């Protein structure tokens, strides 16, 4: 079960973002509530990854406002998995311990969580292996083990299977489902429409830095409401 909820819903009001001075997002009004699996779709450059980082508090809005629950600064209880996992030069288990330490979880509780997390992603046997010499797929699973151990209320996933082979990608998808089942809200980006169909409860479609459509996944794939989304889906089918 996820830790005590403190940062949901996430409410964006007229949010704009211009990382590095380049305008990427504009006029985003959005509310993300607890419990769902939301997939951000859209063409390259639409602003999906930027929106994910704004939601996670990594990129401050250049306009508008964002609230996590009642807070205007990013609360604890969030985690993010990046397309390319970043691991510290220490063992797999110690990478998880580092994240737990930052979250104030130490001692026997940390040991228990580390063991459980490594079991969940199937890396128990590699617990003492240096994280950076693991394969790409194993490192990504370790990134998910870190999330599993932290038990966040919401996790942001930025194309988490983009650089994985199909078997590793399916394995990661199963972990995502498990994390969600445990009570964590999932917000992710992907370019894989089949994956989006498998995982999404809701679809958030972005085009040119704006959310142009938000709907249930089934409805979206049955017939998107906007011309941009229709063109996107047709393009993907080509």
């Amino acid at each position, binding site marked *: 079960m996820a830790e005590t909820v403190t940062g949901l819903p996430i409410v964006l009001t007229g949010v704009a973002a211009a990382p590095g001075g380049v305008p990427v997002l504009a006029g985003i009004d959005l509310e993300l509530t607890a419990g769902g699996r939301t997939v951000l779709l859209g063409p390259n450059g639409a602003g999906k990854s930027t929106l994910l980082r704004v939601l996670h508090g990594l990129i401050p809005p250049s306009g508008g406002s964002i609230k996590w629950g009642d807070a205007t600064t990013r609360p604890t209880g969030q*985690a993010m998995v990046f397309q390319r996992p*970043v691991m510290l030069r220490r063992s797999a288990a110690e990478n998880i311990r580092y*994240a737990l330490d930052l*979250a104030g979880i130490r001692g026997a509780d940390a040991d228990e969580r580390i063991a459980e997390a490594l079991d969940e992603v199937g890396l128990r046997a590699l617990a003492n292996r240096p994280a*950076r010499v693991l394969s790409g797929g194993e490192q990504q699973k370790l990134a998910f083990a870190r999330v599993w151990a932290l038990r966040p209320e919401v996790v942001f996933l930025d194309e988490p299977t983009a650089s994985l082979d199909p078997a590793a990608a399916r394995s990661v998808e199963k972990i995502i489902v498990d994390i969600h089942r445990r009570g964590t809200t999932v917000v992710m980006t992907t370019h894989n429409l089949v994956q989006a169909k498998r995982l999404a409860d809701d679809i958030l479609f972005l085009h040119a830095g704006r959310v142009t459509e938000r709907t249930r996944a089934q409805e979206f794939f049955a017939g998107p409401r906007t011309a941009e989304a229709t063109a996107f889906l047709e393009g993907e089918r080509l």
Partner: protein
Amino acid sequence: MNTVSESFALAAGLVTHFDPHLVDIVFLSLRVSFTATFFAACLGLPIGAAIAVGRFPGRDALIVVLNAMMGLPPVVVGLVVYLLLSRAGPLGALGLLFTPAAMVVAQAILITPIIAALTRQTVADAWGEYREQLTSLGAGTFRAAMTLLWDTRFSLATVLLAGFGRAIAEVGAVMIVGGNINGVTRVMTTTIALETSKGDLPLALALGLVLIAIVLLLNSAAHATRGWAKARFG
């Protein structure tokens, strides 16, 4: 005056027989330069990491100044330290002039900018890779800087060796603040300079060989360590 070949033969004899005078000079050099590197590391590593990770007004100017200070002329550093430690200077009461401690101070001042600037570059490169992940996990600036210092420790070992190499090979500053007093402040480089000027080459050559051997040995160790670390930790 000895011929060059005779000088080399005598120098080899001094080295292989562990001539006590030569050994004393070598150990004093190592003691002074290791101590200076230690103090420079205590200052340079955190300064470099703080500048790499921190964001504050004047940061870019500070980086430029720090990089420029890597080229500090040793004799100027020696002169400044001399003025500070001389009897009429602000730190004259400490009585450090013409002691190994003064040489440590001069070498530390000389190599602190080198260690800080190279640390900044090393940590900044790592920060570029780790920034989003560490921020996502909730690491503040101080914790991030400490984490990066630890994670880049094998690269930073090379940085420290670069500082040590600069310190132990330096002659101008330690000559000014140490005075090159036999048995007290005479180190390898100042002895080489003195003996060469006297035309007595064997000791100068022997010390030169030892100096080169030390630098080669340390750099080989650093290279091997980095290779091992890369294979072991990625």
